[in-house]
């Protein structure tokens, strides 16, 4: 095959493992955006007693490398304890695939980022996080920097879409500089909820559109 990929990459690309959705997943998280090129959604189901990843599935709007990395990375972490999964990096995935062309490395980074976000959310949800820090504006901003505006491909923090953030009595209010009828308003709201709702000291999240 004259394509610049290893046999294993091609194999995982042609017949990817762990593809699809998990209904009632413990965590669902989306990394990237169609606008910036690649996008990957990850679902986790974790045993509440042992914290072992029982099931993991992914969906990809991405290229061959993105699909292949999603496939092998989910293979690697399936059956592992959540703390062990947190230590898996994009380098492990690339190594397991027998390498990727240099320009394609970023595709594997995206998949690993999605994994780390998912693990973080699970640990926060279940109280596995060692020190429970109170949720501050800075923490909220850093979480929201993973939410991408589908129109521009730039995250909503950097693109200045966030007008203000209020935290009062456990209720988080995010005010966006975006009209309510914006074509991606619903997607952005969903992703914001995905990133914030589970935080230990957050009792509710409100997204308000003021564009």
């Amino acid at each position, binding site marked *: 095959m004259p*394509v610049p990929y290893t046999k294993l990459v091609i194999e995982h*690309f*042609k017949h*990817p493992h762990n*593809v*699809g959705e998990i209904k009632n997943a413990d965590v669902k998280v*989306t990394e990237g955006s*169609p*606008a*910036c*090129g*690649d*996008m*990957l*959604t990850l679902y986790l189901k974790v045993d509440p007693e042992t914290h072992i990843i029982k099931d993991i599935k992914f*969906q*990809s*709007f*991405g*290229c*061959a*490398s*993105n*699909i292949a990395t999603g496939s092998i990375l989910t293979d690697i972490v399936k059956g592992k304890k959540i703390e062990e999964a947190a230590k898996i990096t994009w380098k492990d995935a690339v190594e397991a695939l027998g390498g990727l062309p240099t*320009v*394609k490395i*970023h*595709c594997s980074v995206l998949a690993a980022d999605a994994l780390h976000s998912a693990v973080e959310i699970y640990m926060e949800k279940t109280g596995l996080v060692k020190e429970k820090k109170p949720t501050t504006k800075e923490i909220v901003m850093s979480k929201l920097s993973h939410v991408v505006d*589908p*129109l521009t*491909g730039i995250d909503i923090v950097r693109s200045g879409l966030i007008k203000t953030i209020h935290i009062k009595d456990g209720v988080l209010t995010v005010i966006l500089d975006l009209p309510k009828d914006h074509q991606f308003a619903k997607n952005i709201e969903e992703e914001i909820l995905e990133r914030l709702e589970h935080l230990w000291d957050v009792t509710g999240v409100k997204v308000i559109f003021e564009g």
Partner: protein
Amino acid sequence: MKVYLDNAASTKMDKRVVDAMIPFFLEKYAVPSSQFAHTYGLEVKDAVDEARVSFAERLGGKYPEEIIFTSGGTEANNLAIKGVAYANINKGKHLITTQVEHNSVLNSFRRLEEEGFEVSYLPVSKDGIINMDVLTRCIKKETALISVQYGNHETGTVQDIREIAKLSKEKGILFHTDAAIAWPYLPIDAYNWGIDLITLSPHKFYGPKGIGILFIKKGTRIKKVLDGGFNEFNLRPGTENTPAIIGAKKAAEIFSREDVDRILLLKKRLITGIKTTIKDVEYNGLKEHSLPHIANLTFKYIEGEAISLRLDFEGIAVITGSACYSKNLQASYILLAMGKNHEQAHGSIRFSLSKYNTEEEIDYTIQKTGEVVSDLRKLSPLGREDEE
């Protein structure tokens, strides 16, 4: 089944073209510029001159010396743009082109900008065509050259070069058109339409690689951009690629209108077949004023490199405008200039046909594209609502 649908990149040479070239490798290998020294050279010069006459006639030119042979379309574009810009500095240092030109045109203009020229890059509509009013407004007293492609190599959209040529004439500005992908699929008539410079690329029409043609209307002020000997009327130095010149002539001679009609039918069959079997497909570009052999489609919710790689496993060769495919990880600047977003460029595929394609191949492509798209959409987090 093997189906080559990347003919906008390059075509298979016609066997008759190869046959016409062979004597110029093995017997008539002298250089045409040695005409005054020996008969070997004279014989080759006669053949090259015949090729010049042939192209001048086909393009609607009047004189054989209006045809300059170069190393390819890229060099022809470089010579046309830089050569005219340098030679007409007394008229002014303003130039006009579009945002959707081939890289050899765009980067020639960018180089001139670095050297102090001012360049206007015309925007295009969502279908990829320029607006004549905008062009008119861009024209200044100092404008020395307008360069607009005939047809687009990625979307097949055809510009109204007759109107542009007319306007250029009225304003006294030289007009160049890059017809590398368009001619001879579409006709051209240099004198009657008022075109001063035309770029051709024979390997796009079953001719050899390594040869380009620049038509330069007699009297056009132009400077050579490569330094060397006095070949090609002192406009393009270097030993003439005589086998390729002869091959180019042959390819133009045997190019057939019937083939073009058949290719157009195949393209329509492909588009209709895909549109009826696959949901959520967008056509990129103009449907009516389009090159007969190029179709550019966006398959929503999935990525183009994944599509083209899967199709390659099935023996089908196409390319994509996705950022994942390009070396610089940038989505097609042509689709972006047409107002498409990254997501639309991401799932775009260019199908480009030739006279060698058959109905069976097209039907096979429709079937396999359907399978590949449906397979990849199963992996995609997008567009699920439409399926349920």
